[in-house]
């Protein structure tokens, strides 16, 4: 790993051994074991059969006992009952689901125009245009109902995730103890493979929008919590002093001093909540998320790439709009009016909104009870008003078929297929398959030693011991080869992401405009459903390791670019100026000033990339893999919960090891640089 750092003071190991000695000893042991492998007894190559404990049965028994005998399911079902009520009400308002308060579906024109007014109120005409256009797009391409179905869950999951995450974040900031308990839990939640969530989610929270909301929150809470805590911790003592001097109560301190000062971090958290909510739209379709995600999967199932693409565009647009709206809302300062300003003037946006609402509802009443008719029969006026009420699928200007042709034609161009064919051959045959074989050749114990050494080098004694224990647990879970294949894909994807992402981030950091565009690109890739490009990737690269790694790569690039950019831009201008004045070249400035200072932030990015990679490597089973993901798929037949969790936790323990080591390293670095 490129993070290892030469001039760092070496930690002192047990019994007076210096840290680097321990690392060397472990690595030498690993190498000796590997070299001797052909002569080693089987029991030393892989964990022997008698060491594997019957975790599967134990987990099944405990799960059964806690869920049904102790009645834990009643608690979760009670909670999901409350959640369901809220979800149903929102669903009724947005698309007329037959639940309380039993309105009928609102015409799309009403939603679109009110959204545009909201956009204007929060962020001016640009935001109004973006918001309005997004909703008009959804209606015009015939995805209105699905969009509303999706939003009915997002509108509950995102605010809930934001609030809950913020609250837990504040709690973690208040109490070190809470923070220490919550942090590892969050990580487990994030890296526990999605296939492990499927069954518990539908058992505990009922298949449907409720299970989808809970699963979405499980993924979107962690960044919110972490960012809130980081932001609050960073508030400068001067600001705190000023607050105290003006006699703030504790609540006032929090409300008016801490939270506003931590605004930029909280905003990043909010951005991630929204991005992750929309990124989960497709996956959660498996547990009852209605709308766009389910339709996208349906389109993929009958190989309609164009249709799937169109739906993917809608999901990205929604993500961008919601992100911009929420940011504008948080940043917006209260407006002050002169005394005597009339009521309607003060509430001008409310007035416009209500007016538009009444106008479009009125129009839709005119056509109520009318069957949709072709324009020739109805006359233009009626047809047009009908369209304002509801765009039927047949009238929609969906270009699915056109995109479909375009995509498929492009994918069968000789120029394209010959290049990708060559890449596929070279990368698979000369890089990925040999490295896979090599990793499978290495004895289990040697891998454990090597990982321990790496953890020691990065984080010191504590992380090394944890890493050793965690990997031993993985070994005795009994799916070592599959775990190694998983690790292989993860490492390759992260490595590639660093190689490709770091230069991109450096390029982007050179100007404000580029940085903005790059961040938009990051948001797009994070929310554009990966399923859409999986199929073209399969057509080009086949069902093979290179396709798997490419699909993970797209996700791992995002945090690498985002955080490297953030880190480089966060370098104080005084320091870069000082470097300029002492006559440093651009390269020197980059390697000696900017990168060292940005490294702790970049490390967070690498860590995020690893977490994302561990998440995506399992999803890549959609293509076809031979790793843990594939075995997890096998557990889906016959609902083998215990088996599923053994596999899920094999992934969790591997991810935890790297996360802990890298975080410890970043923390040390920050202290060293005086940033913490």
């Amino acid at each position: 790993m490129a993070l290892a750092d030469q001039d760092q003071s070496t930690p002192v190991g047990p019994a007076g051994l210096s840290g680097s000695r321990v690392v060397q000893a472990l690595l030498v042991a690993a190498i000796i074991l590997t070299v001797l492998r052909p002569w080693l007894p089987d029991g030393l190559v892989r964990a022997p059969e008698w060491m594997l404990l019957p975790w599967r049965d134990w987990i099944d028994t405990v799960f059964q006992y806690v869920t049904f005998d102790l009645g834990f399911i009643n608690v979760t079902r009670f909670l999901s009952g409350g959640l369901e009520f809220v979800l149903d009400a929102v669903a009724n308002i947005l698309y007329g689901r037959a639940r309380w308060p039993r309105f009928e579906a609102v015409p799309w024109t009403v939603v679109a125009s009110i959204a545009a007014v909201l956009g204007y109120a929060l962020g001016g005409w640009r935001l109004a245009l973006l918001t309005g256009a997004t909703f008009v797009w959804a209606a015009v391409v015939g995805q209105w109902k699905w969009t509303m179905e999706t939003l009915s869950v997002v509108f509950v999951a995102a605010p809930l995730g934001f609030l809950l995450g913020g609250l837990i974040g504040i709690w973690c900031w208040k109490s070190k103890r809470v923070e220490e308990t919550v942090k590892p839990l969050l990580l487990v939640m994030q890296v526990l493979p999605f296939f492990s969530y499927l069954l518990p989610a539908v058992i505990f929270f009922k298949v449907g929008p409720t299970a989808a909301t809970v699963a979405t929150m499980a993924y979107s809470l962690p960044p919110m919590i972490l960012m809130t805590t980081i932001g609050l911790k960073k508030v400068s003592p001067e600001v705190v002093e000023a607050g105290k001097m003006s006699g703030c109560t504790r609540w006032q301190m929090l409300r008016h001093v801490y939270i506003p000062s931590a605004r930029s971090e909280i905003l990043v958290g909010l951005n991630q909540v929204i991005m992750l909510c929309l990124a989960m739209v497709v996956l959660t379709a498996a547990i009852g998320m209605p709308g766009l995600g389910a339709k996208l999967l349906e389109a993929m199932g009958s190989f309609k790439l164009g249709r799937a693409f169109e739906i993917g565009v809608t999901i990205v647009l929604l993500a961008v709009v919601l992100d911009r709206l929420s940011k504008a809302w948080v940043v917006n300062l209260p407006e002050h009016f002169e005394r005597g300003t009339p009521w309607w003037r003060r509430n001008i946006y409310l007035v416009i909104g209500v007016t538009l609402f009444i106008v479009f509802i009125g129009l839709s009443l005119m056509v109520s009870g009318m069957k949709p008719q072709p324009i020739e029969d109805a006359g233009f006026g009626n047809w047009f008003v009908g369209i304002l009420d509801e765009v039927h699928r047949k009238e929609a200007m969906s270009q699915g078929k056109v995109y479909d042709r375009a995509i498929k034609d492009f994918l069968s161009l000789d120029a394209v297929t010959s290049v990708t064919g060559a890449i596929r051959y070279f990368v698979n045959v000369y890089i990925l398959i040999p490295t896979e074989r090599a990793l499978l050749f290495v004895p289990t114990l040697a891998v454990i030693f090597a990982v321990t050494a790496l953890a020691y080098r990065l984080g010191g004694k504590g992380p090394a011991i944890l890493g050793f224990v965690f990997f031993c647990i993985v070994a005795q879970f009994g799916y070592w080869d599959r775990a190694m294949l998983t690790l292989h894909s993860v490492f390759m994807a992260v490595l590639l992401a660093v190689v490709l992402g770091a230069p991109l981030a450096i390029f982007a950091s050179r100007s404000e405009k580029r940085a903005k565009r790059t961040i938009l690109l990051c948001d797009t890739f994070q929310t554009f459903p990966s399923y859409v490009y999986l199929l073209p990737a399969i057509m080009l690269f086949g069902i093979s390791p290179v396709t798997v790694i490419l699909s993970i790569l797209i996700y791992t690039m995002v945090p690498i670019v985002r955080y490297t950019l953030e880190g480089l831009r966060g370098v104080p201008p005084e320091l870069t100026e000082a470097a300029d004045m002492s006559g440093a070249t651009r390269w020197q400035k980059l390697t000696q000033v900017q990168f060292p200072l940005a490294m702790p932030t970049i490390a967070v990015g690498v860590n995020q990339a690893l977490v994302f990679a561990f998440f995506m490597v399992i999803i890549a089973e959609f293509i076809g893999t031979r790793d843990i993901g594939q075995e997890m798929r096998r557990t889906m037949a016959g609902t083998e919960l215990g088996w599923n969790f053994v596999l899920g936790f094999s992934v969790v323990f591997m991810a935890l090891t790297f996360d802990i080591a890298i975080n410890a390293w970043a923390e040390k670095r920050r202290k060293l640089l005086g940033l913490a």
Partner: protein
Amino acid sequence: MNFVKSLAVGALALAPVSAFAAAHNSSDPIVIPIHNWSSQIVMSNVVGQMYETMGLNVEFVTTDSQAVYESIRLGDVTLELEVWEGAFGASYRAALAKGGMVDAGAHNAVTREDWWYPSWTADACPGLPSWEALNECADLFKTAETGDKGRYLDGPVDWLKHGKERVDALGMNFTVINAGSAAALWAEIAAAEKDKKPVVVFNWTPNFAEAVWPGAFVEFPEWEDGCDKDPSKGPNPDALYDCGNPADGYLRKVAHKDMTSKWPSAYCVLSNISFNNAQIAEMARLVDVDELEAEDAASEWLGANGSVVQPWIDACA
């Protein structure tokens, strides 16, 4: 749509519409699961619309096609219309054994799930569909990753297809690679189509691919009962899975155990329902080829096939 009227009606429950609703069927919605392949989606909508004409409430929920059996057991989902013997047999049997789910009989349709090739493959390997001829041509199916063996692209592992066991049992010169999803299989067939590259993949009928890519199943030694449990069955006396899959697998319907008492008429209709292969293929075609939305496809299919479904409903009045 009538927004104001609905405001007025407000929280009033829907009035019973027909004899069925009066016959002590619960007014709670019957929850029908939707998966990600067209025939299942259209069929679910067809049955949903049948229930609605009977005055029952229906709701749809999208779910995973394996995890759905746990939801049926718990009663969160009321029924399932497409239980494929091959792909979902294991989950179905496990759920039945744990209790909470009842079997509502089989469709008339038979399913076949086996090795399959698109028609252009036969040009390159004229001995097809015999499996021995396929084995002779193994060279044609090589890929970068499989070296000098041919590649057979099997279905996702949770469909439990035993492709690898069959290759071993019959001593075939093939490597089995598992695709992760139906869509991944389609992508591979589509990519092969351009250069008419020979491929042999897992496929099944009835489904949408038949209409897009004509092809045929590979003929393996015919299935004998016990081929998966008794080594002596099939040509290789020492191995399991040395036969083709049954060419007439079942397609069943199941329901939550309380459906019989909560919506007796609906359950009665469910047990009468029996679609055949042609009807299922037609439902899929309306979506896959005619590009209708599932709901519209269901209405259209019902419009043309009212005489098929009406007796099933009438028998339960």
